[in-house]
C-alpha cells in the first residue's frame, strides 16, 4: 500500500512524454526505419542486378531495356510471391496465435501437388500442358480457396468450434492428399515423373506471365483488406478472450482473416508452386526486424524481406549455378541457416 500510494502521489518517473504507440520514439523507431531502408536498398539492388547482370547491352540503351523487360517479368512474379507469402503467413500466425505453423498446414501445397500429379497420372505429360492457361489457373485458385473456406466454415461455426481441431484436420487432409500423390507418382513412367518433379519445386519460372493480370489484382485486394484490418489483427494476437472482451467478434474476424489468407496462398501456390518455407522464414525474420506488435509495421518489413530473399536466391541460382528459377532449394538452405543464426543470437521467437 505504502509503495503504491507513494508512487501514485509523485509524478511518474518516465520523462515528460508518455507514449503508447507501437514504436516508441527514439531508438526503436530509428532502428525500424534503418532496417526498412536497408531492405529497400537491398531490394532495389537485387532487382537491378537481375535486370543488368550479364546483360550484353550497355546500361540505358534501347537493347538493354528490351532484355531487361523480359527479365522484368520474373521480378514482378517475385514481388507477387513475396507479397502473398509474407502477408499470408504473418496474418495466419497472428490469427492462430502461434509462430511455428504456416498456412500450408491447411493443405494448399498438398492440394497443388495432388492436382499436378493427377493431371500427369491421368493425362500423361499432355496433362501438364492441359493444366496451363488462365481458366485452369482460376480453377485451381477457386478449388484451393473453396476447400479452405469449407473447412473453416464447417469447423469454426460448430458448437465445439475449435482452432486446434481445425488445424489438426487440415494436417490430416494435407497428409492424405500427400500420400495419394506419392502413390500416383510411384505408378508414373520415369520420364513423366521427371517432368512432374520440375513442377514440384517452387520455381519462379513456373509462372506464366499470362496469369499475372489475374494474380496481381487478387492478391492486391486481399492484401489491402488485411492491411485495413491491421488494428484488429493486433487484437487477435492477444487471444480470443481479450479480443472478445474488447468488443470484437473473434470468430468473424478469424474467418475473415483465414479467407483472405487462403486467397493469398492459393494465388502464390498456383503461380509458382510450393513455397511455404519462404513464408515461415520471412515472417520469423520480420518479427525480429520490426520488433513491434503492430501489423502496419510488420507487413512492409515482411514483404520487403520476402522480396530480398527471393531475388537474392534467384540471382544466385541464375548467375552462379545456372539453374534459372529454382529458388526454393537455395532459400531452404541459406534461409534456414540465416534463420537459425538470428534465432540463436536473439534467443527468442
Amino acid at each position: 500500500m505504502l509503495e503504491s500510494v507513494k508512487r501514485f502521489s509523485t509524478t511518474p518517473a518516465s520523462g515528460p512524454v508518455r507514449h503508447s504507440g507501437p514504436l516508441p520514439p527514439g531508438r526503436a523507431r530509428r532502428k525500424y526505419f534503418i532496417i526498412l531502408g536497408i531492405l529497400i536498398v537491398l531490394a532495389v539492388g537485387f532487382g537491378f542486378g537481375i535486370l543488368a547482370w550479364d546483360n550484353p547491352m550497355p546500361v540505358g540503351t534501347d537493347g538493354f531495356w528490351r532484355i531487361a523487360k523480359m527479365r522484368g517479368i520474373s521480378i514482378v512474379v517475385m514481388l507477387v510471391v513475396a507479397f502473398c507469402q509474407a502477408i499470408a503467413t504473418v496474418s495466419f500466425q497472428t490469427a492462430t496465435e502461434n509462430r511455428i505453423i504456416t498456412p500450408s498446414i491447411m493443405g494448399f501445397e498438398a492440394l497443388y501437388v495432388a492436382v499436378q500429379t493427377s493431371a500427369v497420372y491421368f493425362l500423361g505429360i499432355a496433362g501438364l500442358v492441359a493444366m496451363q492457361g488462365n481458366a485452369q489457373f482460376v480453377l485451381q485458385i477457386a478449388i484451393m480457396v473453396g476447400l479452405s473456406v469449407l473447412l473453416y466454415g464447417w469447423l469454426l461455426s460448430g458448437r465445439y468450434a475449435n482452432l486446434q481441431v481445425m488445424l489438426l484436420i487440415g494436417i490430416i487432409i494435407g497428409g492424405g492428399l500427400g500420400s495419394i500423390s506419392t502413390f500416383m507418382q510411384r505408378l508414373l513412367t520415369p520420364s513423366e515423373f521427371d517432368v512432374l518433379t520440375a513442377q514440384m519445386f517452387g520455381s519462379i519460372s513456373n509462372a506464366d506471365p499470362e496469369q499475372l493480370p489475374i494474380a496481381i489484382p487478387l492478391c492486391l485486394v486481399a492484401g489491402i483488406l488485411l492491411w485495413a484490418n491491421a488494428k484488429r489483427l493486433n487484437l487477435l494476437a492477444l487471444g480470443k478472450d481479450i479480443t472478445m472482451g474488447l468488443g470484437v467478434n473473434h470468430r468473424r474476424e478469424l474467418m475473415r482473416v483465414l479467407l483472405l489468407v487462403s486467397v493469398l496462398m492459393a494465388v502464390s501456390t498456383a503461380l509458382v508452386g510450393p513455397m511455404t518455407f519462404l513464408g515461415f522464414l520471412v515472417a520469423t525474420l520480420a518479427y525480429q526486424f520490426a520488433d513491434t506488435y503492430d501489423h502496419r509495421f510488420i507487413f512492409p518489413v515482411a514483404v520487403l524481406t520476402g522480396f530480398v530473399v527471393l531475388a537474392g536466391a534467384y540471382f544466385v541460382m541464375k548467375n552462379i549455378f545456372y539453374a534459372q528459377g529454382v529458388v526454393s532449394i537455395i532459400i531452404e538452405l541459406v534461409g534456414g541457416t540465416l534463420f537459425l543464426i538470428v534465432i540463436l543470437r536473439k534467443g527468442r521467437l
Partner: protein
Amino acid sequence: MISLSDVRKDYSDEVAIGPVDLQIPAGGVTALVGPNGAGKSTLLTMIGRLLGLDSGTIEIGGFDVVSTPSKDLAKIVSILRQENHFITRLTVRQLVGFGRFPHSKGRLNREDERIISEAIDFLGLSELETRYLDELSGGQRQRAYVAMVLAQDTEYVLLDEPLNNLDMKHSVLMMKQLRRAADELGKTVVLVIHDVNFAAAYSDRIVALRDGMLVHEGTPEEIMTEEILSGVFDTPVQVLDGPRGLLAVYY
C-alpha cells in the same frame, strides 16, 4: 446492476451450471467463492459474454449481454481471465493501451493516453511502463493486466482469480487497489476468489456457489459462519473473531 435470471449452462447430463438467479448491485466489490468446479469462473465468463448461455438472461446495467452488440458492451463491462499468454512482445504501456480499443478503435488520442497513464499510475506501474511483459515478475504482470482492464474505463469490472500466483504482499496490494477502484473510481468489481478470508476482508458482498448452484449470498458477516462455510466448501471450517474481522480457519 448485474442481474441474472434463470441462467443455465449444460455440459452433460450430470454437469450443469444453474439455474442461477442473482442480483449484483452497482458499486462495491462482490466476491464469488466456492470449491473447485462450483462454476464460479463459468458464471463470470458468461456475465462477461465470453461464453454463451444455454438459457436464461443476463443484464448488465440494463443491457442484455446476448443481444447487445459486443462493441457497445465493451464500454460497459470489462473482463480479465486467468490465463493470459501472448505471442507478441508488448511493453506494459502498449498492453494497457489495448484497453482503450473499444473507445479509440486502435487510434490513441491524447485523452486515451491520459487514461492509460492514470491506469498505470493507479496500479503503481509507472516505472515499469516501458518494460516488456516477459521481463516482469508474475505479480507485476498481473497488475499490468488489471491496468489494461481499468484503462477500458468501464463501470463494471470482472476479474477471474486476480490473486492467482500472487504472494502475500502482492495479494494484499492487489485487493487494496481493487478496493480503491471501487471506492475512488466508483467501479462495480466482481471477482472470483479462492481464499475466503480475502473475500471477507475486502469485499462488500459474498456470493457462494456449489455444484453450479447459488447457495448463499450476503455481506461477509452473514456468510462467515461455521455452518455456511463448512457446507459450501465441504470441509470443517472454524470461524474466529480476529483482530481485523472474522477469520475462517480450515487447516
